[in-house]
């Protein structure tokens, strides 16, 4: 039996070897992947034991960890949760982290590489580790004005500092209260999450940065920019503006808003076409410019890019494959319909770039990060993403946008004593556009001669006015309120 006993001992060795290999596989080779699995709440658990830094807006904490007497030690609380949730995101035991709570996690929990001096001090002095505070660029008055302006309507507002790209306001409706998700009861938090996931209008998804809408007539700014940049057009160039335009190669006639004709002569200047937002003129103009010129201009403004603000936004899209667009599709894109979709952030960036003399600034929402001793450990410096249009073109566009607010489709954005530049949009959407009310837009900036704020507003499905809504009637007043809030400081 000793032979078989020895063989059995070898079998036992093989069995143990298998266990050692499988354990090593999980604990060593596979550990990183498993540790980052979203269902692995250990990392969050560990972080609940730390004093997490606050998220600060205008000197007030909008997200704060308060000491509580439970197994974790700290409870994350959000002041004005719904107002700021598209930026703050949430920090949830049951549901993970999101938005700034996710993107700035290393600083908020004090584990960032840059904070090693603090950690060393904590270790030496026996002080409990504390996270850094993250200060946002948001102007609380502008944020509140945007929130109030949207009221119960669905949509989004984004306001930027055109010179720096700093986000001054970012509101999305419907919104959610991150306090519901931050509950330490995984059951409550899980239920709240499920409820939000299934809620009408998808409140967890920020309309301002994660949702892309057809930009409608606000895209005419890009069409105009492409025309001016081509060198073949000036604001005074007379272009065709027929009462109705049949898309090339199709029998589909496209008219103007409410079926009006733009000009009795069927022709008008480019500046006038933009001022009254003449669809038929821009259909033909886009067709003449061609897909390449349109696509290139859109990309220069930021289309096709995701921005890290510091959390990632959705990319706006001119067309998935511009090379194979039909002429009809190119024509439609000229009025921001068809394949074109844009986030409200992107639409605001177009106005901001025009306001900034043609230079596109990278959008950002985190101004400074300070350690617990209030020393600045990180500061965002404005970054240029390049030039979208020449300074001359930017000036011409500004003049044209001024006339939109002065005497065109956007008069309700006027602010007394301040020159406002802007553009309205009323975008059809859905499979059958006759059955859905249009999304209504306004984008612009003020003051036109020394821009302090650029803004984009979208209200879904016409908001309270439904089918009667236009960008001028519904969105422009909201934009006006936000710009006033910034200008009146």
């Amino acid at each position, binding site marked *: 039996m000793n032979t078989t006993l020895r063989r059995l001992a070898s079998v036992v060795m093989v069995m143990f070897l298998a266990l050692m290999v499988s354990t090593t596989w999980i604990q060593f080779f596979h550990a990183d992947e498993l540790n980052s699995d979203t269902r*692995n709440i250990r990392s969050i658990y560990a972080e609940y034991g730390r004093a997490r830094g606050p998220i600060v807006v205008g000197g007030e904490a909008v997200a704060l960890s308060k000491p509580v007497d439970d197994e974790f030690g700290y409870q994350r609380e959000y002041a004005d949760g719904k107002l700021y949730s598209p930026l703050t995101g949430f920090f949830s035991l049951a549901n993970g982290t999101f938005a700034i709570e996710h993107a700035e996690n290393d600083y908020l929990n004090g584990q960032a590489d840059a904070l090693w001096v603090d950690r060393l001090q904590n270790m030496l002095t026996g002080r409990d580790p504390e996270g850094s505070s993250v200060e946002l660029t948001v102007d609380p008055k502008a944020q509140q004005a945007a929130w109030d302006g949207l009221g119960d309507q669905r949509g989004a507002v984004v306001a930027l500092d055109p010179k720096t790209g700093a986000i001054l306001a970012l509101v999305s409706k419907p919104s959610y209260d991150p306090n519901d998700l931050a509950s330490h009861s995984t059951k409550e938090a899980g239920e709240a999450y499920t409820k939000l996931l299934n809620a009408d209008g998808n409140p967890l998804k920020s309309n301002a940065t994660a949702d892309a809408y057809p930009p409608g007539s606000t895209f005419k700014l890009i069409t105009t920019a492409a025309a001016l940049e081509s060198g073949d057009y000036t604001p005074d160039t007379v272009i065709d503006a027929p009462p109705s335009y049949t898309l090339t190669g199709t029998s589909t006639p496209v008219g103007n808003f409410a079926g009006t004709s733009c000009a009795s002569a069927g022709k008008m200047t480019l500046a006038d076409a933009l001022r009254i937002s003449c669809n038929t003129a821009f259909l033909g103009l886009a067709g003449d410019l061609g897909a390449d010129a349109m696509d290139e201009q859109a990309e220069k403004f930021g289309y096709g890019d995701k921005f890290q603000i510091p959390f990632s936004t959705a990319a706006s899209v001119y067309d998935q494959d511009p090379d194979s667009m039909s002429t009809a599709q190119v024509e439609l894109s000229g009025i921001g319909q068809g394949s074109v979709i844009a986030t409200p952030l992107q639409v605001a960036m177009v106005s901001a770039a025009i306001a900034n003399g043609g230079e596109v600034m990278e959008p950002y929402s985190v101004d400074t990060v300070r350690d617990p001793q209030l020393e600045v450990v990180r500061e965002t410096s404005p970054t240029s993403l390049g030039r979208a249009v020449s300074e001359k073109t930017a000036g011409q566009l500004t003049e044209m946008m001024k006339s939109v607010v002065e005497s065109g489709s956007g008069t309700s954005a006027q602010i007394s004593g301040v020159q406002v530049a802007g553009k309205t949009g009323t975008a059809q959407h859905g499979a059958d556009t006759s059955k859905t009310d249009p999304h209504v837009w306004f984008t612009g900036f003020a003051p036109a001669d020394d821009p302090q704020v650029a803004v984009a507003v979208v209200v879904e499905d016409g908001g309270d006015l439904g089918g009667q809504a236009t960008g001028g009637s519904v969105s422009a007043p909201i934009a006006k309120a936000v710009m006033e809030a910034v200008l009146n400081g």
Partner: protein
Amino acid sequence: MSAVVENPERTVEPTERRPARLAELFLLILALAAGISAFAMVGRSVTGELPADFWAVSLVLTGISVAAHVVLRLRAPWADQVILPAVVLLNGLGLAMILRLQLADTQGADAWAQMMYTALGAVIAILLVWFLRDHRWIRRLTYTAMLVGLGLVVLPLLPVIGREINGARIWVNIAGFSLQPAEFAKIAFAIFFAGYLVTNRDTLALAGKKVLGLQLPRIRDLGPIIIVWAASLAVLVFERDLGTSLLFFGLFVAMLYLATERFSWVLIGLVLFAAGALVAASVFPHVGARMDVWLHPFDNELYNAVGGSYQIVQGTFALAAGGLFGTGWGEGYPYLVPYAFSDFIYSSLGEELGLTGLLAILLTYLLIVQRGLRTAIAVRDGFGKLLAGGLAFVMALQLFVVVGGITRIIPLTGLTLPFMAQGGSSLLANWIVIALLLRISDNARRPSALPVRGTIAQGGAMHDPIVVGAHDGTTPGGGVPVRRPAADAPSRGSTPSHPTEAITPHRDDPRGTTGGEHL
């Protein structure tokens, strides 16, 4: 290591000096240091102070170590010196983890109960070593053990006392105490198999045709293996316990192979089990569901399903969180895994002690198992060889089933990690296993051919249990065919209980006319 036995394969070198068991003493001190410092550390980490039970658990662990050491010195001085310290180490680390989980208010973790069962298990083991002077005495219980084993297996199926917990019906509840009879059944079966096989090994090995180089057994000799196969499948199907069924069947196949040296038995066994398991997986939904969870644990649907892969995925996360060196005692989150203190104590230990700690624990188990197998090789009687080999192997197999289940080598089952997982049945049963191994190893290493005062020449008046054993097969229930029951064996100080190797001093169990090795 024994200073006495240099090469246990050969007949032991005669010596009169009783080992002082200093190696064991030294190793015990190390094991106790590891355990007691762990008790202190979990308290410091979790609550910031020494745990309330610190002195109690430390004293109990020290007490059983000292008691066992002293009893071994007195009653089994030649017994293996590594096994006891290894067990104390594992038991101590397990207690520390359970204490740590209890301090973190983990529902169900009960360090006090585990401590009591540790003490009880150790006391039973000590008594066993004290009163059982010769393991061959157990052989008379061969058929009693079979009945007891089968009885224990069906116990959970009985109404009133049977309990179904988490889908597996492997518990009985008697007077408020929960028992897992399978833990004890494995010992009973090991005794039965050893006694049965030592008697019938030749018939099983030699009768039958040779096909394709495999010596096939005769159909009528297949009877016992069919019965055990059916019993294992019954456990699988009716008690929904893949682990226990695998354990019983693996034990039997391994011991059959040990006894007959016929690989054909292993093949037949594996084919039968695989076939049975496959059929069960396709016919019974709960077995099939286990398979799905095994193969695709990270599938979100299975993860969220009731009875799905949540536990094993969380256990895997715990292991991953531990990484190479672990979080340290009390610094991790092992309680996030359901049953972190019993079925999943392996992942809990992995999280806080890391890969380093788990490899050390695995090696400690390997040490116990290999020492057991070594004992089997060294001991001279066939029954002892089979029993020690079987008990050592069943521990290895249990470890493989538990750890393999958690690390997904095989489907997850409900077996417990010996000495570490919380559970009275498991602790008591495994301490009994250790007592038996220690007793057999004492016999294996004890110098035998010494001329002792009062003894006659070899082959003299001493009983020969092997010859006696040959009649066991005809006396089910164990009877009393022994001329001189081993219970009456000469007391300490004399050695006439090993006459057999004087007759056949080489390796194996001599069985009179047919005896010896047949290769």
